[in-house]
């Protein structure tokens, strides 16, 4: 029997059938574990989806899998930390799928390291992937949203911004920066019909996390939650789709903690 704390939930979308028909979404970090789960939910409601990943093969494989299920999804390679890369990928995606109406800034990178051992190069790598990427991908996608008078941007932050774990200070700094970026862009773009919100997952049981931490770390998080189990990509699909749905039309600049009730602010 499966340990109750390892039970995987079902992904439940907050979007209605056909709600995103005629719209295009772009998901960065689209070749990873959680990105394709977001893409699937957006595509299920009718969106065409561009998956952008630093690893071309991962982007193609994730896109192919979703295409085989009948969705309109295509992969592009780009390092979100390089503005020219982003511009090329977004331009191409717009030509193929249409202007980006929904942007999910999901790409991220983390290493666990002692504060004093973090080199300038390592700091820049984390900063570029997590914060600079969200900034410039948004900058490239916003003109089309403004023109349409409608847009949705969801930035992935993390509950580490609340907890402040000591083993990844560069990551914590960038993920906290994402919350500030979210608030500022919300105020800048609200009058154009664009909402900008942040999603803060707890420690999600994905392969990269399992590679970084022992299973006991995941168990410890589960024990501290109101809902005492591991967190999975599926848990984030409802909140992500809520931000993209009509239900959140008047919600902007907010950060939602999705961690089974571990952190409260």
């Amino acid at each position, binding site marked *: 029997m499966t340990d109750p704390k390892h039970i995987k939930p079902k992904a439940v979308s907050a979007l209605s059938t056909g709600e995103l028909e005629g719209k295009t979404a772009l998901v960065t970090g689209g070749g990873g574990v959680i990105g394709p789960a977001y893409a699937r939910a957006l595509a299920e409601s009718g969106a065409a989806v561009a998956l952008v990943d630093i690893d071309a093969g991962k982007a193609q494989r994730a896109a192919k899998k979703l295409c085989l299920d009948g969705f309109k999804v295509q992969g592009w390679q780009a390092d979100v930390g390089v503005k020219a890369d982003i511009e090329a990928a977004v331009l191409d995606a717009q030509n193929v799928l249409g202007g980006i109406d929904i942007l999910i800034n999901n790409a991220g990178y983390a290493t666990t390291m002692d504060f004093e051992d973090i080199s300038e190069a390592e700091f820049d790598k984390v900063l570029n992937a997590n914060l600079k990427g969200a900034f410039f991908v948004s900058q490239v996608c916003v003109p089309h949203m403004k023109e349409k008078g409608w847009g949705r941007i969801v930035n992935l932050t993390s509950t580490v911004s609340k907890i402040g774990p000591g083993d990844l200070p560069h990551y914590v700094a960038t993920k906290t920066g994402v919350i500030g970026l979210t608030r500022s862009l919300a105020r800048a773009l609200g009058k154009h019909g664009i909402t900008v919100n942040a999603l803060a997952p707890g420690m999600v049981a994905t392969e990269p996390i399992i590679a970084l931490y022992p299973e006991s770390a995941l168990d410890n998080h589960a024990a501290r939650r*109101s*809902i005492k189990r591991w*967190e999975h990509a599926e848990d984030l699909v409802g909140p992500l789709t*809520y931000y993209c749905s009509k239900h959140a039309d008047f919600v902007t600049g907010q950060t939602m903690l999705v961690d089974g009730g571990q952190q409260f602010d």
Partner: protein
Amino acid sequence: MEGLAGRTALVTGAGRGLGAAFARGLAAYGVSVGVLDIDGDTATATANEISDTGARAVGLIADISDRSAVLEAITGCEDALGRIDILINNAGFGTTKETAGLEWHEWPEDAWDAVIDCNLKGAFLACQAVAPKMMERGWGRIVNVSSATVWHPLANGAAYIASKAGLIGLTRSLATGVGEHGVTVNTLVPGLTKTDHMADLYPDEQFESFAQLRAIPRVELPADLVGTALFLCSDASAFVTGQSFVVDGGHVFD
């Protein structure tokens, strides 16, 4: 949205305003609704209006700060609709004509008690009455309605704001107690919303000046809050608990 159709909700303060909007919104997604209000006539009228659309609804009268009245109304709701899966603690008020215009240090003790008893104790009593059965069944949703005034307070709203901040604490505490049993508890935080009641209390300029403070610069209406309430009552938010959801067009950030 998955998880709503076929459920039963109890909404307090639902005779008019925000509560009535929540009740109508849930009913439109296939939820049977107990419409509870201290004013029985408005509860009955809203319940009848919902029933006319083909949904199931029952009007209930209770002063939410009176434990025996709350228990009686909940029994009435269960008798009429079968059970309660969803509770929206929306009943609340800030001032009466006796306290309107008073400085906080001039407020009589009984006026403070009345606000706290309705807004905070009322929510606690309703939770206490319905949550154990939700836990037994392994599914439940509780939404407590707070206020963005917790983030932009006014001195003469001391009792109201204390009660609304208290609801955030109640939400967090209950969330940790019921999470293992499939029940989530979250707080909905509206900005200044133009309900009929609020439009009677404040001039249009008040709503307009708040609109200008928002990222989305317009007057907030009850309909703006319904989507988030539906999300928090659905299966899409199953792993979200103890949290506060500000819905104010981007005025205050949490």
